[in-house]
């Protein structure tokens, strides 16, 4: 049950499964109060370690999980985004969370387009969702750019049972019809 050997390139980014060398920037990201605000809040390093290895394990168990995002120009890990559906999750999510230094460059949208293509084409998903806190306006803007719309409000499963999120999303048909239009 090894991690799948997948590598996706976009104009400025490389998406690949979790690797050991990603942990230091991951831990720094999860310790950043502002960056971690909408992904469950800041975590001490031992807790970040568990989340990091859970991501690596999800790749091996499910054959997918969020990709590590590498900025091509610097070679740096800048965040993680992609398909994510742990037990009890409200649907087939493509989510994103980037370190603060990588904000406001269009990276979340660029990476998520590639990840959504992959989720529909390689995983055969029929819908993608994005669980977004009601006050997370930057991620709402990304979701809109991706063509998703708010669908419903829900609670997340443990350990996030106290969090209420808006579920944004779209179907495969909606995604493909927009992608086809933009290609012409």
């Amino acid at each position: 049950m090894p991690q799948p050997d997948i590598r996706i390139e976009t104009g400025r980014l490389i998406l690949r499964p979790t690797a050991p060398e990603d942990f230091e920037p991951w831990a720094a990201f999860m310790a950043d109060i502002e960056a971690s605000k909408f992904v469950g809040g800041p975590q001490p390093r031992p807790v970040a370690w568990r989340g990091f290895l859970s991501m690596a394990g999800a790749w091996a168990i499910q054959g997918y999980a969020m990709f590590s995002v590498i900025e091509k120009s610097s070679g740096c890990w800048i965040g993680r985004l992609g398909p994510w559906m742990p037990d009890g999750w409200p649907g087939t999510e493509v989510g994103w969370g980037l370190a603060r230094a990588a904000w406001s460059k269009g990276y979340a949208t660029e990476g998520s387009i590639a990840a959504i293509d992959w989720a529909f084409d390689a995983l055969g998903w029929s819908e993608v969702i994005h669980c977004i806190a009601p006050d997370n306006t930057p991620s709402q803007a990304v979701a809109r750019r991706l063509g998703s719309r708010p669908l419903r409000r829900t609670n997340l499963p443990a350990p996030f049972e106290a969090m209420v999120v808006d579920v944004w999303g779209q179907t495969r048909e909606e995604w493909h019809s927009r992608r086809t239009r933009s290609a012409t």
Partner: protein
Amino acid sequence: MDPSTIRLETERLLLRPPAVEDFEAWARLAADEKTMRHLGGVQPRPIAWRNFAFTVGSWQLQGFSGFSVIERASGNWVGRVGPLQPEGWPGTEVGWTLASAFWGRGYAFEAATAAIDWAFDQLHWSEVIHCISADNLASVALATKLNSRKQRTATMPAPYEGVVVDVWGQSRDEWRARRNDRSAM
């Protein structure tokens, strides 16, 4: 090497890294009050899944973690036993958690012995520890049977911050000296 191909066999048990099909039994164990009493209490299924994924991920990225223990005669998953050393942990542990339906058969001793051999031989650890709550008498008895001794107390890292455990353990030399004595008899 792909660590998921590792297999250890004992007289009655098979130890191998967790596989997808182990999760249902894993989740039942996590929901069993009797088993989880000394391990922070029962866990809802989504938490059990994250811990299962964490164990699989530890195998992938660290090259070791808890083995799934399988009863050879039945094929049943009976629990997890093996090496673990998450970030901030008080040392190189070989721990054990068996579903309560399989207690009282010596399985934890049998599996822990194989896992300790493997940790010393393959991971080249110089010491094994076992983090045990003072009131977990069954695990204290097992640590004693393994010839570990109580060395110190430790405060566990997050998410178990504030939990104080007794650290039992022994060195590789102590373990091997006794193993040689036993096999020479």
